[in-house]
């Protein structure tokens, strides 16, 4: 057996060259890609861990935010409830005040209407009483509507204060004597006579017819008047009644 030293040497060189070639074209690229993948995987894992950490942090933040929002919501609800209660109370008070005011106004209106109605009723009653009185007096003799009131007129004049009596028929003009109908001469004279007696001097009178008097006489001077008629009595009576009702 022989050894070919040239072949041995060449094969040694060939093997070394092949080591270099495979290192260059096989082992190094594959090892590089493996380490690259490992680095990429580690980076991916690190990124995932960081992302998970960030996500957990975000979740915690969101949880805290939600709790804060819930607390704020609760506070807002409480405040809104309090405000609603306050407004409710205020509205109730305002409504109560309005109701009281409306009730008072209604009461006042009702009272006013009642007073107006009563006045109307009183006026109507007055008118009715005047009518009744007229009707009743129409049954009496016509003379009685004058004669029965002459003395009363004279008493009224006599009851006037002195200054007022002096003023009546002081000659500055005729006094007006209102009667429900035209006076007869005898009645005129009786009136004049009674007035002279009451005043102490002659008087000049002008007779005026006023059927509203119903019965009686009314003497009117410049500054004073004496009323002795049914109309005056009825008006006085009505005024008294009204005042009594108002009281």
């Amino acid at each position, binding site marked *: 057996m022989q*050894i070919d030293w040239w*072949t041995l040497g060449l*094969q040694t060189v060939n*093997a070394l060259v092949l080591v270099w070639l495979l290192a260059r074209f*096989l082992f190094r690229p*594959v090892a590089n890609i493996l380490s*690259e993948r490992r680095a990429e995987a580690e980076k991916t894992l690190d990124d995932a861990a960081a992302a998970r950490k960030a996500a957990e942090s975000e979740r915690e933040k969101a949880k805290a935010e939600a709790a804060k929002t819930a607390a704020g919501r609760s506070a807002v609800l409480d405040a809104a409830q309090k405000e609603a209660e306050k407004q409710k109370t205020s509205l109730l008070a305002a409504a109560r005040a309005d109701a009281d005011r409306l009730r008072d106004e209604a009461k006042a209106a009702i009272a006013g209407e009642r007073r107006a109605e009563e006045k109307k009723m009183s006026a109507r009653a007055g008118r009715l009483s005047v009518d009744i009185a007229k009707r009743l007096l129409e049954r009496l003799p016509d003379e009685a509507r004058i004669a029965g009131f002459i003395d009363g007129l004279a008493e009224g004049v006599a009851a006037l204060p002195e200054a007022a009596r002096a003023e009546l028929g002081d000659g500055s003009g005729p006094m007006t004597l209102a009667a429900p109908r035209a006076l007869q001469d005898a009645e005129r004279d009786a009136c004049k006579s009674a007035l002279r007696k009451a005043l102490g001097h002659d008087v000049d009178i002008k007779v005026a017819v006023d059927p509203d008097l119903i019965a009686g006489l009314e003497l009117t001077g410049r500054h004073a008047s004496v009323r002795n008629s049914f109309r005056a009595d009825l008006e006085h009576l009505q005024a008294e009644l009204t005042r009594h009702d108002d009281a």
Partner: protein
Amino acid sequence: MNGSPLVLEPVFFVGPVPITDPVIVTWVLMAVLALGCAILTRRLKLRPSRTQAALELFVTAIDGQLRDIVGGDTAPYRALIGTILVYVLVANWMSIVPGVEPPTAHIETDAALALIVFGATIWFGVRARGAGGYLKTFAEPSWVMIPLNLVEQITRTFSLIVRLFGNVMSGVFVVGIILSLAGLLVPIPLMALELLTGAVQAYIFAVLAAVFIGAAASEGG
């Protein structure tokens, strides 16, 4: 085939240098392997194709084996051990190509590989703990062991050579003898057995190389 089949006949000469069959076959293998690897690793991506996954599996398996044997960082040894494995495997399997003798069936190729392993053992040992430190390992566990350790360095290298050479050469011879005696199809089971033997021998050669290098390097560690 004239004369001893163990004697290499030059195919041609380059100057004074005779170029024999094993050298030519090795050159072809080198070209094919380098070209194939260059093509396969041309477009490596982070999302691997099937081919890339197979390549990565192969390299990862070598790394795993080296890690078990040598320990620590396997990158310095990967190319040498991996190349020995690939080359011996492919060279052994050349026996199934008609008209081609495996380069490893000639002792020159096996001796070249064993020499490289021998040199690598010294290189990695010296690199790991320095020349003095490496030389001191021959005196372990006692200076009495120095001759034995020296002899061991030689004998284990020879054992690498002879083991690979004997197995591959014998296989080639057996197949050749059977083929000459029995005809066309009879050697096929033996050829299949040769494939298995070739794979096993490639693995053994690579692992033993790793063990020798790892032993030298780890002694320094």
